[in-house]
Each structure stands twice: as C-alpha cells, then as structure tokens.
C-alpha cells in the first residue's frame, strides 16, 4: 500500500522522536534526575492515554483514573514480596488486576450516565485508598510497602525502568491509534456523540462501555507495577492520589481529548509544570493552587485542547471546495422477494401498543401489521403518536403495554441494538448523525451483529469501509465522505442517515419525515432512492406530512389519531375515509363526506 507524502512525513517524525527518546539516557547517562523526570512523563503518557480512551473516545470523564496505578502497584508489590520474583516480570499482572477491577466496576455502573460515572470513579479511588490504609496486615497500612532494590548492575541504574516505561508509553499510543480505527472505536465515539442513537444503529452500548473502561485501565495497571519497583516504596496516599488524577485530566485535556497525540503532548507539557511547582514551592498549597488554576483555565478557555484547536484553525484557513453530489446504483441483499400471485408474508406486527407520558396517553391500543416488501405510509395529525410508535418499535422507548413481533419473533422487550441486529433500521425526524465524525465514519459505525472479531474489524479500510463507500455512492454523498457530518445541509444529512441505516442491512426501514425541511429537488431524489430500494425487496414504513409525496409513494397507508391506527387502505380509499377526515379536520367533516383536496 502506498503511503501519501504527509503520512510518510508523519511516520518519519514519529520514528525520529522515538529514536531521540531512546538515545537520551545513553547520551546523558549521568543525568539521573532528567531520567526520572522522563520516566514520570512516560507514566503520565500511559495514564493520560488510558483516560483518553474512556473520556475522549467514549465521553465518560473519570476523576479516579489514578486508582488503577495504585491497584497495579499494590498487586505487583505484594506478589513480588510473596513470590520473590522480579516486579518487572510481574508487571503484566498489575494490568490484569486493573482490568478485572475495571470490568467488574464497569459492568455495575454501565446503566448510568456521565455525572454518575464521575461520582463513582471518585468513590472508587477513595475506597481503594481506605482499603490500602485499613487492611494493614496485607498492605502495611500507612507505613506502606518496601520493595527490594533492583538486582541489576548499578552501572545501568535507571535504564530498565526508562525503557520499560517508554515502551508502555509507546504501546499506549498504539493502543489508542488501533482502537480509534476499529469498529469498536467508531462505536465508542458514536456513544460519546449520541448514546441513544448509537444503540439504534446496533451498538451494544453497555458492552462497549465496559470494554472501553477495561482498555483504559489495563496499561495503567502494568505501569503501576513498573513504577512501584522504580520507587521501591509505595504507600496508600501516594498511590491512590487524586492529584495524580488531576494531572492525568489536565494532560489529556490540554493536549486535546479524543485525539491520539493529545495525551502525549499534554503529558510532556504538564510534567515541567509539576517539576517547577515542586522546586519553587515547598508548600503543598502552591502546587495545588497551580494545578487548580491550570485545570480551571483549560476547562474555561481551551476546552477542546491544543491539537483540535490548532486543527480547526488550520482547516478554517484552507478553503475547501464543496463537491457536488453524485450517485451510483447499488444492490441491497434481501431474502427472496414476494411471489407475485400470493400475498406477501407478515414482517412486522404491533398489537395493542401503549405508552404514557405522565397523564398523556401518547400511544394507546395501537395495532397494525406490515407486509414484507411493502412501502407503508404512516400519517396522522400532529401529536397522534407516529414518532412515539416508531420509538416503541425500534426500542428507543419502552412499551407500557402491547407486543411487537418481527417475523413472528417478539422484540418488544429487546434493547435497541438487538432490534437493529434483527433488521430494524431507522432515520430520525431531526437527523441524528454524529456531528463530529466524518460522513464515512457515520456510515461505517452501525453494527449488524455483536461479535468480538467484528469489534476489531478495520473501520478505515477493508470490507466495512468499502461497503460504506458503496452506500454513500448510492445516495450520492460519496464526494463528502471526509467532511464532518455536522457541516452538511439538512437534506444531505438525511441522505447520509439513510445510508447509515442501510449499513445495518435492514429488513425493515422506518423513515421519520424523510422530506420534512428538505428542498423539493432533494425530496424527489429521496423518493427515487426509496423506490429503488423497495424494488429490490426492502420494506419501509414512512411517516410523512407531505401528502402528495405519501399518496404517490406509499401503498398501503395507515392513519393514526389519538394514539391508535384508525384507518388503513390504499391512497384512494384513505382520501375518502370519513374517519380520516374527522381526524384531520374535526368532527363533522367525515359525515359531510367531502373530499379532502390535497
């Protein structure tokens, strides 16, 4: 594969930087202070990189990330003291311990959202600190634990620590880079941008969040083992220190959270601050003041961090040419289409759906069926429960009563992602693309099923990305593939969201007002796409207020009013149905039997 010039330059810069860091302790072998500062900088790279996976990619901020340092350190120190093995050999077990704690904790807290997560991570840190203090028989309590001095020749001094920690720092960058370009990474960013939408496109959010938490903890645990041996002494206050968490957050935030290099840049910026504060101020107060003010300033004035801010400034300077939309045909795989002379089998059946909001019965005793291969219109006055019905069918909302069956299988108790895996795709009335992801990332994000190998699948190249490009070609948005989705026009977003739904290889697509707020040319374009997909056997339900479009596109049409389906039939029949006229125009119109002019 050919690497473009900019990529070659970047690779060369990384290699050069790595080489310089590797040569440094050999060239300045007597500068022990400098080496230990670098070891701490590497440690901070590992910790900030880990934090960034959870907070930057997934959007869950932790204030207790330094707990994993302590967990790794104590695990390795205790094992080493009891087994008599070298701590460096045992360091990976520190990572295992951190991963186990993260998995257990993650599994318990993953039903909650961001502020609850912050609170839990603070509690976790102090809980472990208190445990380390109180379980004195095991941990030595506030006296701490002393590890044996390194066994190697005194001439090489800090070198093993330097290279071990440097290697971990490099590994953490590779870990972030790799996660970001897999389907797992795309799913994590989707959760950060819009967690409910992520579930609708098949992302099994709890599993993703747990994985992300584990991935953010494991290297910190390993580093904790190495660091404990480097210090040769650990105690609860030093190892479960919330100020270390502050430095982690500050580093990642300053460099740019959600980026690969942000934590690295930030760590190397924060370490000098730490050293300066330590040397100038003997008083702990000044150090706290410095970090408090620095963190506050970054949150208030540089919330995106250095790298994204510079990147935004750069892209503003470079005027981009706006490409034109362009289409290519597409084949969607569907089970054998309906036989012409027999009625198509039932695909979706809703029976007695109910949903209340407070005292309002938004949907009540709503029943309907959708036949395979049909293009059903769902119309009704505002507030009649159309979107709520969509939400109940796709699992965005839970039903208070009633059942939904897809192909005979009950799905009304399944979480949204499982319904997506079974073949339900949907678009939203107000599009819900992930605004800070590019168009192609948006389309790659959906998951057709949950499997471990699939999580590691490459989202940037390979079959997934190729399929996404095909879909973008089909809706005509391929020229915009690398634009952030948030910059598109509303109509273009609708096209991309349709491509996103198609990525699920759905059997049934629910479109919520595809033509709402879109210019007429685009409406015709969308209608054409829908017809084409339908010809290939895909089934649709369309909520729409544009009556000429519905009457032209859909057959049959369902009419909702007051939270239930009041009429069903061909466009011609619906236009004459007295109940429909009553629903739209008020009591009495139906009896007068006038024809609605549409």
């Amino acid at each position, binding site marked *: 594969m050919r690497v473009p010039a900019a990529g070659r330059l970047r690779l060369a810069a990384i290699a050069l930087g790595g080489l310089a860091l590797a040569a440094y302790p050999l060239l300045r072998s007597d500068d022990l202070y400098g080496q230990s500062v670098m070891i701490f900088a590497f440690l901070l790279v590992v910790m900030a990189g880990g934090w960034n996976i959870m907070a930057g990619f997934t959007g*869950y*901020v932790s*204030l207790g990330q330094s707990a994993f340092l302590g967990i790794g350190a104590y695990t390795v120190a205790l094992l080493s003291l009891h087994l008599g093995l070298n701590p460096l050999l045992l360091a990976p077990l520190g990572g295992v311990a951190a991963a186990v704690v993260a998995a257990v904790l993650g599994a318990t*807290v993953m039903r909650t*959202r961001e502020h609850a997560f912050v*609170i*839990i991570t603070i509690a976790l840190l102090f*809980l472990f600190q208190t445990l380390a203090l*109180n379980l004195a028989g095991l941990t030595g309590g506030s006296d701490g634990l002393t590890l044996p001095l390194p066994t190697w020749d005194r001439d090489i001094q800090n070198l093993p620590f330097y290279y071990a920690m440097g290697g971990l720092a490099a590994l953490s960058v590779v870990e972030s880079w790799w996660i970001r370009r897999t389907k797992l990474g795309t799913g994590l960013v989707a959760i950060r941008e819009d967690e409910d939408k992520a579930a609708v496109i098949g992302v099994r959010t709890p599993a993703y969040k747990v994985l992300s938490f584990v991935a953010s903890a494991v290297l910190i645990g390993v580093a904790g083992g190495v660091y404990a041996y480097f210090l040769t002494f650990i105690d609860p206050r030093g190892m479960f220190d919330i100020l270390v968490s502050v430095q982690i957050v500050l580093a990642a935030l300053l460099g740019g959270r959600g980026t690969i290099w942000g934590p690295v840049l930030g760590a190397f910026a924060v370490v000098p601050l730490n050293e300066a504060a330590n040397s100038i101020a003997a008083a702990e107060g000044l150090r706290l003041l410095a970090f408090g003010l620095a963190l506050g300033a970054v949150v*208030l004035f540089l919330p995106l961090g250095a790298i994204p801010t510079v990147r935004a400034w750069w892209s503003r300077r470079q005027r981009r040419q706006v490409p034109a939309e362009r289409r290519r045909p597409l084949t969607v795989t569907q089970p054998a289409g309906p036989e012409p002379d027999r009625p198509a089998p039932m695909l979706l059946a809703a029976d007695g759906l109910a949903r209340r909001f407070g005292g309002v019965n938004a949907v009540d005793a709503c029943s309907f069926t959708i036949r395979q291969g049909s293009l059903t219109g769902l119309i009704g006055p505002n507030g009649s429960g159309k979107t709520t019905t969509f939400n109940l069918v796709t699992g965005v909302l839970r039903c208070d009563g009633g059942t939904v069956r897809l192909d005979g299988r009950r799905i009304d108790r399944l979480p949204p992602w499982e319904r997506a895996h079974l073949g339900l795709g949907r678009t939203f009335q107000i599009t819900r693309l992930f605004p800070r992801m590019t168009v192609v990332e948006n389309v790659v994000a959906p998951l057709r099923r949950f499997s471990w190998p699939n999580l590691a699948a490459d989202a940037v190249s390979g079959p997934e990305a190729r399929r996404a490009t095909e879909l973008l070609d089909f809706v005509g948005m391929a020229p915009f593939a690398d634009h952030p989705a948030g910059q598109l026009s509303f109509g273009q977003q609708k096209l991309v969201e349709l491509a996103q739904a198609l990525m699920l290889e759905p059997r049934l697509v629910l479109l919520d007002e595809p033509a709402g707020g879109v210019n007429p040319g685009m409406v015709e374009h969308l209608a054409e796409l829908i017809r084409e997909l339908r010809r290939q056997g895909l089934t649709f339900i369309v909520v729409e207020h544009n009556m000429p479009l519905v009457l032209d596109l859909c057959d049959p049409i369902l009419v909702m009013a007051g939270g239930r389906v009041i009429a069903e039939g061909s466009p011609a029949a619906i236009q004459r149905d007295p109940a429909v006229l009553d629903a739209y125009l008020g009591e009495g119109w139906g009896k007068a039997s006038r024809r609605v002019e549409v």
Partner: protein
Amino acid sequence: MTHAVQTVILGLLIGGVYALLAAGLTLVFGVMNIVNVAQGALLVLAALLTFELWRRFGLDPIAAVVVTTPAMFALGWVIYRLFVARIRTAPVSMTVLLMFALAITIEGVMGLTWKNVFRSVTPSYGNQSFHLGPLFFPKAQVYGCVTAVVVLGALYLLLTRTWTGRAIRAASENLQGSELVGVNIRGVAALTFAIGVATTGAGGSVLSVLYAVFPASHYLWISRLLGIVVLGGMGSVPGALAGALILGVAEALTATYVSTRWAVVVFYVVILAVLLVRPQGLAGSKLREDVAG
C-alpha cells in the same frame, strides 16, 4: 441496648447536620445539573473562617452562622458569575472538572493561609452534655443539629412560600417549561448556586465545633455528601434529608461497633451499591437518564 440507642441518637444528631450540607448540593444538581464537587472544599473553608472569627474575636461558632452564611452566599454568587456561567451549556463532565479545579484551588489557598494543621473550635460547652436518664446528648451536637434544622426550615419556607422559591422549584422540574412561563433562568441559576453554597456557611460553622478540619479533609466531606445525595436520589431535597439521617446513623453504628477507620467506607459502598441496584436513589429519578423520545 442503651448503648445502641445512644449510638443511634448521636447518628441522628449528626445526620441533621449532614442534611443541611447535602440539601445545598442536591438543590444545585436538581436545578442546574451540576455536581458541585467543590461543596466539600467550600464547607471546610467556612469552618476555617468560623475558626478565625472565634480565635480573633471570640465569636461563638454557632452565632457565627449569621456571618458565614451571607459570606458564603456572596462567594457562591461570585463563583457562579465569574466561572460557572461561562460553561452553563457545556457537557456535565466539563462542569464537574471546573468544580473540581475550584476545589483544589480552594484547598491550595486554605493550605497557604491556615497551613496543613487540624483546626477545631472549642467553646466552653464543647465537652458538656445534656442528660436524660442513662442517655446523654452532647451540647455541641444538639446546638449544631438545632441550627441545621432551623436553617433547613428557612430554606423550606423560601422554596415553598416565595415566588423565588417557586421559580427555583419550577426550574428544577422543567427548565425549558419554566423559561416559557417567564422564569428568568439565568437569575434563578445564579441564585440557586449561591443558596447551595450558602448552606456550606451554616454547615461549616456547625462543623467547626464537631470535627477538626484541615484543608485536605474536603475530600472526606465531598465523599460523605455525594453518598448522601446519591442515596437520596440526586436532585431530591427530601431524599437528601432521608439519606443524611440514614447515613448519619449508619456511620455512627459502624464507628461504634466496627471501627472508626471503617466508618467512612459506608459512604463509598453506598455510592457503589445504590448506583448498581437503584440508580435513581430513594426519591430521585434524575440519575438514571432513561432515553426520551
């Protein structure tokens, strides 16, 4: 038996003080969706101010409530206007980080001003008690609990009997709705934040008699308070009151029958357990943000 009753009584007395402290935290969360993790630092600051007033002017710590409460109210107002208002619309996580930055800044200032030494106010009644049969009621704890109840009562009247209070409650139930019916959201937010911080004034003064405080003890206090509001259900003031009494008693029982060293673990375990089993707590519904259409 007497011993157990005595422990529960002491737990309830301290629970009353916790209730006041937690009320401010949960009120701010309910209206503004801000987890004010600086509440512990502000509390310790108020306690140290009380200590200073007592040392310099001999002002009784309970009487100091009338000074510290308005002072902390003003500080809260300033903090809101200068910092919090700038990131009102930012994600919850960013406001938490800002409040945390504030907490360690205050900790740093306190460390420079009062040094890292335990401080406590020791008025003459500090080691006296009321007696009722075999039971005793330490005067400091009784006065503290009574003060807390009086301030809470005033807060209750403010929230239920005044237009301002109604505006605050409306904003906590439905921010957009209350804006539509004419509530000045920004004014209400600043006021709520200032009231929330003001509770640390009264609370800190009471605390200065009951506990020795030093700058870094704010972590312990914010842990206690978060435990209480999580148990009560974040955003719910009645929930916070119930949570405070329950955890006050639980802490006293643990300290008496297990060990004082394990007493604080009660709060951490409660946070983890509640968020696992019943994320909405006793009364609230905010913490578990089930999807809405």
